[in-house]
């Protein structure tokens, strides 16, 4: 798959996970591309953990309000019906199950749905920010990421990096396919027709079951 198309492909597929009215928190990077792929009849409420229950799109340069940012510190806007909130309220909403889904990237995910995405000891220390709360609190935790990192699997038998949370991931969406995290392990439920099941298995360290109902990503 063309490298330049991967992120948009993943975001487009992830956009199908939502129904009208869902409250969704989107991580920095790839997940922020999702809203542009939502069907016209699906409006989601974007929760921004830094202070909005109902964020709007990135404003045009002339409309930038320096007092309104997203969780990455970039200029943002409030959506119609949105509310500004403080950090305690924001994470209360998140931890309390009032956010239907969070979509975020990962360094590693494993067979049990364990997630590692906040630290590579001695190398990268961004900190967990709101991620630990989000993956524990949101009803659905969707990892949207490239299937491998420089050719190395990121979907592992067991995470080797420090965890963000245990058994929290519910679904993994990559450029190769869609994987559900179930009590019986990881199940490939959709596949990108550019790849074979064997391709996906080869790029995945974890044991990967294949759904008898395997569908093609449209």
């Amino acid at each position: 798959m063309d490298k330049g198309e991967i992120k948009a492909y993943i975001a487009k597929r992830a956009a199908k996970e939502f129904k009208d009215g869902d409250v969704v928190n989107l991580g920095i990077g790839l997940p922020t591309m999702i809203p542009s792929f939502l069907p016209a009849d699906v409006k989601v409420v974007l929760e921004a953990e830094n202070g909005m229950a109902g964020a709007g799109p990135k404003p045009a340069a002339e409309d930038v309000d320096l007092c309104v940012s997203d969780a990455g510190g970039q200029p943002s806007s409030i959506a119609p019906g949105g509310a500004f909130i403080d950090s305690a309220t924001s994470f209360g909403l998140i931890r309390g199950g009032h956010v239907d889904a969070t979509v975020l990237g990962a360094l590693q995910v494993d067979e049990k749905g364990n997630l590692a995405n906040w630290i590579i000891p001695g190398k990268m220390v961004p900190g967990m920010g709101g991620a630990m709360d989000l993956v524990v609190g949101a009803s659905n935790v969707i990892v949207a990421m490239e299937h491998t990192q420089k050719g190395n699997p990121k979907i592992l038998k067991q995470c080797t990096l420090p965890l963000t949370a245990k058994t929290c991931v519910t679904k993994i969406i990559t450029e190769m396919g869609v994987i559900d995290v179930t009590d019986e392990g990881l199940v490939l439920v959709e596949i990108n027709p550019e790849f074979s099941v064997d391709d996906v298995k080869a790029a995945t360290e974890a044991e990967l079951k294949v759904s008898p109902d395997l569908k093609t990503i449209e």
Partner: protein
Amino acid sequence: MAKQISVQEAAALVKDGMTIMVGGFLSVGGPNAVLHAIAETGVKDLTVIANDGGQPRFENGLHELIHNGQVKHLIATHIGVNPEVGQMMNAGTMKVTLVPQGSLAEKVRAGGYGLGGVLTPTGLGTPVGEEAGKEVITVNGKEYLLEEPLRADIAICYGTTTDAYGNTKYHGTTRNFNTVMATAADVVIMQADQIVDMLDADEIIVQGILVDYVVDGGAK
């Protein structure tokens, strides 16, 4: 009534070795005028409780304090936006304690609201949980981490509009940690964009009885 003081007077309240809370989220809603004045005093060995490690662009006062080496220990949720923080952490020139963002909000609120702590599922099974020595408590068959309260000597908060009584309201995403931090320190400084005589009692986000000093930070 809250006492109105200058940014320099506010900065002079911060002494070597103090623990200070600093509101703001990256470059939004931080009390930068007061932080800049603190940087100028040269006060050192500070423990800073904040959302992040500042942002090395715009006029970010928290970044300035860290860059100057005035911070001995940073307690924060996210430091990736300011690479200098990670470098200082790895070089051992500044201690960094990372806390999940939602837990930080509750820890500060607990400190300000007289709670002995809260039980949260966040961080269980991770390096900030049991492995860090935190107590695991089971309620109705479900495990939680006990997160203990945090307090500071001084909280330096930002407000959009503050009145003569210290009552404060906010515009946009500037509330962030300012609201809980205003509850959790022995002395609370509120740097406001605008100071008015009196706000409408229905519109107040931080109650004036929490605020000791008001500082005019200048309109944006």
